[in-house]
């Protein structure tokens, strides 16, 4: 592990020095055409989501008389239904508060663990580090059945805490891993000086290490937040009251009138449920790439 993670990405990316040798035509064939095809495939479902959310009902199931790829009669009725006739704002709020709660808990735990493993270097730190990494590899789909019974034993069933307290098991391993990479990049000398000046470990952590690791914390935050937002199987199993549901679970179950799916509102909900994350990433994508660089390279 070298002692720089984030700065690497800030460098310009003239990695493949042959670009200037290319003709525009070969560049078109080898770069732009494949790139555009991949991008179109990656983005089409979102276009379709958005379009469905504003299409009038009769056009949704009419592929013959109108061009399904566009609509001239956009309607806000699906979105209206979503916002005013369902508990969607509640679900959004639930998802948000669960995600933030779980993320904060995870970050606190991860900062402690990462710092302890990287810097305190207590006996067995390497083993614990390895164990934490392995914990990341234990998937929720193995755990949900026993967890359901445990959640009940702890008296958490059907409360937001069922999720706030279980999500960290998914989040801590990776964010610990990510933060370890960051802590390693902080020069020892800084800490040593502080120790000499009489600072405690706690002061070192809060006054020196954390401020320097802010990019890492942001990345870990984004990562945790995304995973929380995305989680499905725990939310599906541990939450039963509609008032406590999270967006992913609620969307799937709440827009069916018995056996009629209200596709417009389902799509509007899916889109609205994705927006907070997309916005978050729009601001922090470079950060995220930087963090990944920091985490994966050694």
């Amino acid at each position: 592990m070298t002692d720089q993670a984030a700065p690497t990405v800030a460098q310009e990316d003239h990695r493949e020095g042959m670009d200037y040798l290319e003709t525009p035509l070969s560049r078109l064939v080898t770069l732009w055409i494949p790139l555009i095809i991949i991008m179109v495939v990656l983005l089409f479902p979102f276009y379709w989501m958005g379009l469905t959310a504003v299409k009038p009902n009769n056009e949704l199931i009419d592929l013959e008389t109108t061009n399904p790829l566009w609509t001239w009669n956009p309607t806000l009725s699906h979105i209206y239904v979503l916002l005013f006739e369902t508990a969607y704002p509640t679900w959004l709020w639930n998802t948000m508060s669960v995600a933030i709660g779980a993320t904060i808990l995870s970050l606190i735990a991860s900062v402690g663990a990462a710092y302890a493993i990287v810097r305190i270097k207590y006996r067995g730190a390497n083993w614990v580090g390895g164990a934490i990494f392995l914990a990341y590899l234990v998937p929720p789909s193995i755990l949900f059945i026993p967890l359901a019974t445990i959640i009940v034993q702890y008296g958490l069933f059907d409360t937001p805490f069922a999720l706030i307290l279980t999500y960290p098991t998914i989040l801590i391993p990776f964010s610990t891993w990510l933060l370890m990479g960051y802590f390693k990049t902080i020069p020892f000398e800084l800490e040593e000086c502080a120790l000499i000046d009489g600072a405690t470990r706690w002061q070192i952590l809060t006054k020196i290490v954390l401020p320097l690791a802010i990019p890492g914390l942001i990345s870990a935050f984004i990562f945790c937040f995304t995973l929380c937002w995305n989680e499905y199987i725990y939310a599906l199993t541990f939450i039963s009251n509609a008032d406590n549901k999270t967006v992913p679970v609620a969307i799937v179950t709440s827009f069916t009138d018995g056996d009629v799916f209200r596709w417009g509102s389902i799509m509007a909900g899916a889109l609205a449920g994705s927006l907070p994350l997309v916005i978050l990433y729009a601001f922090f994508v470079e950060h995220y790439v930087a963090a990944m660089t920091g985490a994966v390279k050694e």
Partner: protein
Amino acid sequence: MAEIGLDRPVERRETSGAWARLQTNRNWLGFWFMLPAAAFLVLFLAYPLGLGVYLSFTDTRIGRDGAWVGLENYEWLMGMAPIADFFGTIANELFGTRFAISGDTVFWLSVFNTLLYTIVASVIKFAVGLYLALLLNRHMPFKAIIRAVVLIPFIVPTVLSAIAFWWIFDTQFSILTWMLQGIGLVAADHQIAWLGEETLARASVIFANIWRGVPFIAITLLAGLQTVPGSLYEAAVIDGATRWQMFKHITYPLLTPIIAVVMTFSVLFTFTDFQLIWVLTRGGPVNSTHLMATLSYQRAILGGYLGEGAAISTAMIPFLLAAIMFSWFGLQRRKWQHGEGND
């Protein structure tokens, strides 16, 4: 505290004298810092993992405690000759043979489906992801925007994009069918049952999984690519290397550790996927897309057989360990990041 009174160390290795003096107090300190993370992982991960294994040896049902039944659940699922069943199922599915299965055919089918899903999706995700990463690593305008856009499928919650796919793969109102009809590949009155025909349903869910997984792999590999020193390429260009040679001899070797990590993640998450399948097919048609994770939900929560569901979940563990070992020994050429003497 004991930290006071350190000598200024002459080198930055923690083995230097000043750091060594902390040794006695260090273990305690480490314990306190570790405590929150450890508490979470023990209470909500290690304990349930153990409990899950225990449940799989009982006949626990929803609504009442079970009794210890030993291997009964496993015998019911895997039959008397698991190895023969395993290969028999593979042969039945791939070559249309009709070997008799002694265990639960649906269970074995779900094992087959899971392996098929994981292997096909992972291989394609890796190939497309690497290709996309190489494309994105080139010099181009709007680079930041393009990267942000590529990442969208990864950040949007899987369930929500799965819903979009559900509608795209609809039998009667599929936009895909409409487009294929438009370009004349499919007869105008013919509807394609994307999720209704076994092979097609498998292909459709695998496609959705690839779609979702490629951005993560591409962006991670891109991050790796950017750590490759540009000087290496410049030297190679001077030596007259072709693009392929550069990839083979510079990019790929340097990227291998990252590939190992990212593919381990990818394989694990594909293997244990639940949401995509649950939204798109719930395991149908005719169980042909049931993964082990969805089957365990079906049996445990819907059917009420918690013990049997736990047994299916537990049966995933050996496969997961195999995948981890494979990446550890097969691809891994460096130490993990948890600090085994690499600083």
